[in-house]
């Protein structure tokens, strides 16, 4: 590419990244330590949802910014040592969507991740197909991948980050 191409000479913001870029970033990270996450509620920001991955980068960033506003009811997650839950609506922090936590190797890249398995009895059947993976981006900041389990395999739906309020 040359002359009038879009150029990026500062650090990438997560909201700028497409799914394949986030996948490459995710594969460079070490697994999250449950001890660092447990006992806290973490604010999440949705990144690069599946449907948006072909958007031009400025629109992708705008969508990501929009998803970070209260228009998006998803607030974040909380973790205990073996279970955790999603939280909805910033003001009331309603828990909905639970998961079991374990450490295992990612089916995508074979390296360790903190594995969030939504196939638990408390969840409605639609949510039970979700599988999450969490790794450490930097101290106190985590990058996670949300997958959808189908009969044909595991498909990445979106990425999100988690950090303290």
């Amino acid at each position, binding site marked *: *590419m040359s*002359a009038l191409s879009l*150029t990026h*000479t500062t*650090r*990438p913001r997560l909201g700028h*990244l497409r799914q394949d*870029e986030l996948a490459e970033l995710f594969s*460079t990270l070490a697994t999250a330590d449950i001890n660092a996450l447990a006992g806290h509620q973490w604010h999440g920001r949705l990144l690069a949802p599946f449907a948006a991955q072909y958007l031009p980068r400025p629109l992708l960033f705008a969508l990501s910014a929009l998803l970070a506003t209260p228009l998006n009811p998803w607030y974040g997650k909380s973790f205990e040592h073996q279970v955790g839950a999603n939280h909805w609506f910033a003001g009331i922090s309603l828990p909905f969507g639970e998961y079991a936590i374990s450490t295992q190797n990612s089916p995508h890249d074979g390296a360790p991740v903190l594995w969030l398995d939504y196939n638990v009895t408390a969840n409605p059947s639609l949510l039970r197909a979700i599988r999450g993976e969490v790794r450490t981006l930097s101290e106190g900041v985590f990058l996670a991948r949300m997958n959808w389990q189908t009969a044909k395999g595991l498909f990445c739906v979106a990425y999100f980050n988690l950090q303290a309020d």
Partner: protein
Amino acid sequence: MASCIDTLIIGSGFGGAVVAARLVEAGQKVTLLERGAWRETAALKDYPLTQRAPLPHGKYFASHLLRQVSVGGRLAQRKVLNTNGLFDIHYDKGMTSICSSGVGGGSHVYLAMNTRPLLANYWDNRANGLSADNMEAHYQWILSRMGSRPAQESDNIVNLVPQRLGHHPALDTKIEQPALGFRFGHTYANNAFLGDANGHKVTLDSLLLAPLLTKGLTVYAQHECLTIHKQQTGYRVEVFDHREQKYRFLLAKRIVIAAGTLNSLRLLFRSQALGGLAHMPALGKGFSGNGDVFAIWQAGTKDDDFRTGTPTLGRFKLRGLPDSPMLYALGINGIDQIPLLPAFLRRSAKSWLALVGMGNDEANGRVTWRNDELHIDYQQAKNPILAHIYHAFDLLSQHDKKRVWFLPQRAITVHPLGGARVGNHQQDSVINAKGQVHGHRHLYVSDGSALPAATGTPPSMTIAAWASHVSQHILSEIKNHEAHI
């Protein structure tokens, strides 16, 4: 997990290419990132390289001259004009810096002068274990690889300083002339600061990098490194691939930063600001412009034509000026590559010489980080070498009765040095005598930003010698590590 690169070098100029060559020739596998493209030159024509960018010659002059323009200080901003452009200009109140981009780095645009520092003891007492004596082997290595030698009469070069200016009563041309990294015996035109498409100037892409592509060196051209993050093991590097217009993320066990002084400082400052690297208290200290002062001088008559010759025609001193600075002369070599230049300008430029004064400034500038851009604080009044060079130009004007034009109000350099300098202590230096960033055993700096002071001469060989020195320590670390497992 992403595969982890053993040694990642960021930058392909004298700092990066030398480390790459030394490591690969010792049997190591090395990956090198370069933000610019491979250049289209005759010296590379036999290599199967894709997406080569032309030098800014002829019809490419306007489109490929500038890569990036940046402004420091309160108005800080940076604009990339063309990722295949040759030059970066960083404007700052304290100093304006010009540097280049492309595989081979500054070797495309330098004047092929292969010189040692003005002071023979330049490397003494800089850091424990570092001395002029133990750097000597590294100078000899690079000078030998470059095939450096001074121009000789048998080379049939017109316009060399001793021949053309030797009669001038005000000039002392009987001084040691610089060795040149140049393939003598061919044509002597269009080979200076706009790059040499004929490939006669020895550049690092053809000398060191391209021949090693089949021997363990991988070069990612047009990949710009943005940040470095220390991880539990090794480093994560964020990169922008200008070719594919996408971000990439790499893991490396060992990183050598050699992106050129300003870009290395950008990388270190940004990584520090984002928490990727721990605080480096001395980062930005000891910045030098190498005493660069530029001038043009109508040295000849209308019958003279200085446009042909080697990239530099030689150097001289002024008689009658105590401690005269060294002044380097070059014809307006390359002017024929600028299209649409009015004929009268082209005619008159052929009898002009460009002069570059250099000397040991105090290396007392300070680079800071503001609004995601560098800010250079450099005070001319605290660097008397600049006034001394201005005085030399004034004296030359007086003796010659022809004006020497220069800009005394504005410090401009093509040799920014320091800012991540070598030393013993974290409080006043960024790296140790092995080139390792203090507190980071596997993070090295091998370019001009590591230099502890101005060289007072063109610094390329000193940067290359430093890079060679760093590479020997890297090899020794690798050997020690292998011995332990």
